[in-house]
């Protein structure tokens, strides 16, 4: 970094600094003149939106922490105090609370964009993997953050999720005790969750840095999935995409503000306004909406897997659920090696596009299943059955359909260049 060619700046002070630490050169190269495909659609806004949300979470979080008390006897009340007594506390809290949801919305769209346009394929595999790592870190951060207000859902959500680790053979129980720092979720747990919830966003920030660095090595993908071949295919990042990103961000923020100011608790759960009680489990524990699809996969496995006709269980239902839940994210990690089809974008892969859209529906369906109680029915079908069917499609999509399409899908003819693709689209419109 910084050993390359410098840019000369007119401003003497800027130039003096840049000679010693080429920050300005870096910004100019990576965000000023950076050649960017000219055909981005609005799906390409969500990386910048995610970045904005991350910063917003860090800023509001730091100010919330100034008024928050991580102790089982005081946490709930300190959050109520933020809501009622601290100047603007209600706003800080509502931004942070809904900000997590909107951060996930942005990242889910961002990930789906990658799947739709084949952005995970060579040479962007590592970029993609870093993205999945960010996603995992985000989930851990959001989970620990949700425990901090010490409401009923905080407490019982934490109980259920930390207990997942007890499914690990032999060492499971010791791991859970280690996580808790005791024999149940209690003050030591709340304390360490606060410490980690404060730390993790900065780890995410560091990984985002690597993610963006990797992006700037190979450049962005684009809706056609063809690499830019020359100047006619690209635009300088500034002012074209700085403008487009800003516009998209503002639209996103308008929706965000509607939630923050008019429906701040719409995405939350009323039970979390009851203080944690270790003796009473709420009738229906649900995680935050952005975990629901994975929660449904966890609950889909209700049977032991063992040697047929014997009593020997190899994988208990509990361990099976945990494995399938983590496995479902693991599949994303190896996606670049599952899908080896030479065409990137869905635009030129009608079959993959069909199955991917079904996948999207199934994923949302899993979210619905996750939100329902275990004994609910769905049009006369038990919810558990719907859960296992959707989980099967989730796995089948990655492990059967994608490899099958690798060998069978011919795809449409690719345009010669991005420039050609744009012109062709223009002609079709006219």
């Amino acid at each position, binding site marked *: 970094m910084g050993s390359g060619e410098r840019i000369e700046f007119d401003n003497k002070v800027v130039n003096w600094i840049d000679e010693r630490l080429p920050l300005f050169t870096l910004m100019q190269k990576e965000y000023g003149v950076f050649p960017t495909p000219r055909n981005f659609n609005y799906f390409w806004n969500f990386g910048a939106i995610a970045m904005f949300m991350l910063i917003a979470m860090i800023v509001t979080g730091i100010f919330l922490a100034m008024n928050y008390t991580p102790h089982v006897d005081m946490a709930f009340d300190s959050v109520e105090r933020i809501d009622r007594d601290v100047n603007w506390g209600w706003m800080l809290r509502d931004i942070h609370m809904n900000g997590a949801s909107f951060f996930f919305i942005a990242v889910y769209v961002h990930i789906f964009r990658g799947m739709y346009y084949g952005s995970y394929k060579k040479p962007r595999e590592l970029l993609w993997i870093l993205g999945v790592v960010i996603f995992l870190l985000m989930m851990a951060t959001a989970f620990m953050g949700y425990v901090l207000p010490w409401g009923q859902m905080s407490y019982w959500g934490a109980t259920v*999720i930390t207990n997942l680790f*007890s499914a690990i053979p032999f060492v499971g129980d010791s791991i859970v*005790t280690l996580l808790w720092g005791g024999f*149940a979720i209690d003050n030591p747990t709340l304390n*360490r969750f606060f410490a980690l919830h404060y730390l993790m966003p900065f780890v995410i920030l560091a990984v985002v840095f690597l993610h963006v660095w990797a992006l700037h090595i190979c450049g962005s993908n684009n809706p056609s999935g063809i690499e830019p071949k020359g100047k006619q295919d690209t635009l300088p990042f500034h002012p074209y995409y700085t403008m487009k990103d800003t516009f998209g961000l503002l639209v996103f923020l308008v929706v965000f503000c509607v939630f923050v100011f008019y429906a701040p608790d719409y995405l939350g759960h009323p039970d979390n306004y009851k203080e944690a009680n270790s003796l009473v*489990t709420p009738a229906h524990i649900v995680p935050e909406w952005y975990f629901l699809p994975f929660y449904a996969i966890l609950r889909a496995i209700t049977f032991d897997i063992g040697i047929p006709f014997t009593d020997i269980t190899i994988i208990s239902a*509990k361990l099976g659920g945990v494995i399938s839940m983590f496995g479902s994210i693991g599949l994303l990690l190896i996606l670049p090696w599952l899908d080896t089809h030479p065409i990137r974008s869905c635009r030129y892969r009608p079959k993959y596009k069909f199955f991917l859209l079904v996948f999207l529906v199934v994923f949302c369906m899993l979210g619905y299943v996750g939100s329902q109680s275990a*004994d609910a029915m769905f049009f006369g079908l038990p919810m558990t059955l719907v859960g296992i069917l959707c989980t099967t499609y989730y796995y089948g999509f990655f492990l059967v359909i994608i490899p099958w399409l690798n060998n069978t899908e011919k795809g449409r003819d690719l345009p010669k260049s991005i420039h050609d693709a744009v012109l062709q689209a223009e002609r079709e419109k006219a």
Partner: protein
Amino acid sequence: MIYKEKGTNSFSDYPSFNYEYCIKMTAGSKSQDGISLDHDDDGETRRDFLFLTAGSFGAVGAGIAVWPLVSSMNPAADTLALSTTEVDLSPIAKGQSITVMWQGKPVFVRHRTEKEVEEARAVNIADLSDKQDDVERVTKDKDEWLIVVGICTHLGCVPVGQKTSESKGDFGGWFCPCHGSHYDTSGRIRKGPAPKNLAVPPYEFLSDTLIKIG
């Protein structure tokens, strides 16, 4: 790699900082001075040995340094100082259940009716997923007292069934609403995702109407 055009970083001209030299050194090739980072022959050298031993000492040292950090997350001495809980059984009528706290966990103390005990004993053990006889789960001659940790062995919810108004599940014991585990009148898992029976904590009868848990 030294740029000489306009705007070049002027420090790269400093004699003490020679890019080319650095790059060659790190690439491990023979430098101009004839200093070599490669071995002259492919055999093991003193340097390999020193490198490996230094590396292993470093790794062991890092491990030792991490140990106290991880260990500090385990239950502290005051948490470990096992509190014991004494429970007076006399006010608990037949068919009733109470919940007491022990080590931060709820413990169910159930005064079972004869019918409930019979039901628990009538079960064919071979049909159970966590095979345990009711006799092993209670104190001899105190068959009517069932004492179990009230934490579902699936993912740790507190099952319902303690109050008369609550569902006791399909087997008359407890029902865990979280993911639908049913426990029988011996606290054994009969249906649902939980892998094990409700745990029996260590306890002893101090007298006919007093127990000490822990």
